[in-house]
């Protein structure tokens, strides 16, 4: 079964998305520790400013790709029967796609 994204491409996607996630996570942690938004309005304004929307969207795309490569590896290691494997991978793909779509909907609505 040749999975989508295999071999060198999967490795490259995993490393590239890891770098994106690493930088963004570091930025978020530092920013939230130094300047935590204090209430609902401040939180709303901070998350939904244009720069943060773009950044978060990038982050969620990278996250979906990174989670796909990583979790697919786990499934391939432990789920051997063909149809179970197909179901597990399908479920994973659906869950990650749904998460990405929900995140995009959240970040793209005015």
């Amino acid at each position, binding site marked *: 079964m040749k999975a989508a994204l295999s071999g060198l491409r999967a490795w490259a996607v995993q*490393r590239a998305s*890891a*770098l994106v996630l*690493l930088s963004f*996570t570091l930025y978020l942690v530092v920013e939230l520790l130094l300047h935590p938004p204090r*209430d*609902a309005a401040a*939180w*709303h304004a901070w*998350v*939904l400013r244009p720069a943060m929307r773009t950044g978060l969207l990038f982050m969620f795309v990278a*996250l979906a790709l990174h*989670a796909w490569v*990583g*979790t697919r590896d*786990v499934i391939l290691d432990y789920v051997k029967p063909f149809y179970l494997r197909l179901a597990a991978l399908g479920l994973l793909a659906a*869950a990650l796609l749904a*998460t990405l779509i*929900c*995140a995009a909907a*959240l970040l793209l609505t005015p």
Partner: protein
Amino acid sequence: MRSATQPAGEPAEPFAREQRPNESARPTYLNPLKVKLPVTATVSLGHRVSGVLLVLALPLLLWALARSLSGEAGYAQVAAWLSGSPSRVLLLVLAWALAHHVVAGVRHLLFDAGIGTRYGMARRTAWAVHLLTLALVAVAGFALFGPAP
């Protein structure tokens, strides 16, 4: 190893499996709870477990984000949920997951660049991963359970 005289049912050794073509008949023993695990193995195991935990937590975290942005009532609901003790314990576990996954991931990226791949260095960096993760979890624990700012 199967033969016509063996009864059907559970094999005696843990994780024993059917012999595939081109595979030798030597038995394997792969019970992670009984095999001695060097520190490099615990880092790798933790990397996988933490990754799975983070993926499982993703929908929950996205829901919390969306809810907290939906208005005063949503924000209050998420804040109330986050202030409960069970949620804080969950967040501490997720903090461990994120810390371990990121620190072990950085070690992996260094391996990709060829840094630290000799076994002596690999063991030392593995210990460093555990220690750094613990330090980060301690910080998170303080933030979650310590005195309010």
